[in-house]
């Protein structure tokens, strides 16, 4: 053992390789490997009759996606939903996180964090179905707004509403963590030096806030972009990218086309991450 130890001690590169090989193997095989299979199968096609996969290179899937207007519409709708959900989460999360980090007492702070986390304990499906009941014709939401049919009902709006509810904790937590790192003394110093609230917010709070919000938005945006269950339950006839992928795997048994569709959110997320990286938000994760 000691000989091996001293052998490795003299060879730092080998030491590093031994240490990193297991996680790297996991990353390459399980994660990048799956992505690679996805990409490759996107270029295959399916025999329309028997459903057998035809393993020959073809651009047919991508041609269909580009030629058919519906896929553009679904992509834009999905990005719109993801952006709206992220926007709503930011608007709700920032004041909430600011209150938790800067206003609430240390004792109540812990309880508030627990309160934010409790919805995560319940199953995603249970929460989505609860919203289906809430939004049903003549359900509680309708009753609050004045009788059957006066609520939003099922549809795009309901989808955005429920997704915002589901992903809110993922926005609050990073923003809270960011604001907590901001020492109170900085705020006091800014005030002592004569800065008004607006200027303090711009020069002290905002530089900390923006990367945290971006960090949170990575969660809310990507989770919304890939979602297909909520929209199935409360979305009425709305279809998002996830539904088109699901319909092609589950119903049409067209795995290659589903893979081709699935590259769209991957592409959107890559563009989004590159944009976010420039803001320095990735260091906040």
């Amino acid at each position, binding site marked *: 053992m000691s000989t091996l130890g001293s052998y490795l001690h003299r060879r730092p590169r080998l030491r590093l390789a031994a240490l990193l090989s297991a996680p790297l193997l996991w990353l390459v095989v399980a994660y990048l490997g799956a992505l690679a299979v996805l990409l490759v199968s996107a270029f295959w096609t399916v025999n329309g*009759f*028997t459903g057998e996969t035809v393993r020959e290179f073809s651009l047919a899937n991508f041609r269909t996606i580009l030629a058919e207007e519906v896929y553009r519409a679904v992509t834009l709708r999905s990005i719109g939903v993801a952006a709206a959900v992220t926007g709503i989460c930011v608007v709700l999360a920032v004041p909430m996180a600011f209150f938790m980090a800067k206003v609430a007492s240390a004792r109540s702070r812990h309880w508030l964090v627990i309160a934010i986390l409790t919805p995560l304990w319940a199953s995603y499906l249970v929460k989505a179905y609860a919203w289906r009941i809430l939004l049903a*014709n*003549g359900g509680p939401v309708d009753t609050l707004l004045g009788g059957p049919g006066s609520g939003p009902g099922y549809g795009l709006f309901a989808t955005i509403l429920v997704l915002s509810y589901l992903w809110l904790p993922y926005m609050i937590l990073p923003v809270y963590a960011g604001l907590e790192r901001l020492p109170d003394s900085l705020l006091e110093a800014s005030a002592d030096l004569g800065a008004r609230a607006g200027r303090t917010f711009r020069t002290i709070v905002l530089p900390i806030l923006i990367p945290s919000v971006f960090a949170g938005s990575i969660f809310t945006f990507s989770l919304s972009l890939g979602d297909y269950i909520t929209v199935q339950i409360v979305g009425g006839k709305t*279809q998002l990218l996830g539904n088109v992928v699901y319909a092609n795997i589950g*119903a*049409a048994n067209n795995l290659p086309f589903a893979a081709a569709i699935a590259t769209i959110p991957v592409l959107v997320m890559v563009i989004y991450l590159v944009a976010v990286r420039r803001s320095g938000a990735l260091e906040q994760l």
Partner: protein
Amino acid sequence: MAALAAGVLTLAGCGGGGDGDSGSGSGPGGLSVPKLDKATAVGAGEGSVNVVSWAGYVEDGSTDKSVDWVTGFEQETGCQVNNKIAGTSDEMVALMKTGEYDVVSASGDASLRLIYGGDVAPVNTDLISNYKDVFEALKNKTWNSVDGQPYGVPHGRGANLLMYRTDVVTPAPTSWGAVFDPASPHKGKITAYDSPIYIADAALYLMKTKPELNIKNPYALDDTQFQAAVDLLKQQNELIGEYWSDYTKEVQAFKAGNSVLGTTWQVIANLTKADKAPVEVVLPTEGATGWSDTWMISAKAKHPNCAYLWMNHIISPKANAGVAEWFGEAPSNKLSCAETKDANHCDTFHAEDEAYFDQVWYWTTPLAQCLDGRTDVTCKDYSAWTQAWTTVKG
């Protein structure tokens, strides 16, 4: 190979022109049926059987205590029944491709795909004692056999119906026009079946209302006819509240009133009524699409003996009558008519009325070779239907 090349009557003539072994068969596009052996004997059960079925086909008393034709079978044969409900034919095909399931209740728009895909095996009907009592009109049809070789046992048949809330929809609808009317007072509360095969419902409606399109078979649509059907569905999309493929979702939507009008199965109407919602069903004047189902055995069945025992059991007079009454369809076994609780069931569902079923267009897989016999045009095949369905939903 010669026997295979002889061809299924309706599919013949479209083969040939293919290359090599795989292209000389009798199936669509020159596909040949994979050579699979059928069972020669049924031994003792393996202890369990994995089933893919339509909702309401496999009831063990857990939905309704009095509705149970599974428990007796399990006790008698020792085959534990593990059931998986599928919402659409496409889902059934996908599930059978996993090789995890032994038997499936396939409709006509899935059965040929399963046969030519090599996912189901030919069935030795000599091993199924109840087969002799099945209506002759259901045996050896294009959707359940190839070259006279049965690929399953007929289960039953019926029509897709129009369901409506009696308290909201007045007067009661009599035509499919009710779900396609752009000026419908029920805009936003109409529902439709979420599957590409629903395009046939629009085609059937056009067949009766737009004779100039000259549609002879709602599953054989050339470019113009297909476009007309898709356009009608895109227009209908404005009226739709939600599409359904999960039957529990439709029950809940009709109960709450989110949906008040739309296509359904009898079993869904029964469940909705059991939930005390005021709904009724009607077979519209245009006729309807429908199904004729077949129990098939997987080519990779891990429990072949239990699968054969199940296929024999599910078409036995008692079980077949039970399913037929619960699901609301015509039974396949002629002795079933004496076993139904409602003595008139077989009359109500036209079990022996071939003239009636001539009005029902059984789900069939659309092929490029027109099913109505036209040879001067190419029809839209199922993959075109699938992609068009995404554009309909928008």
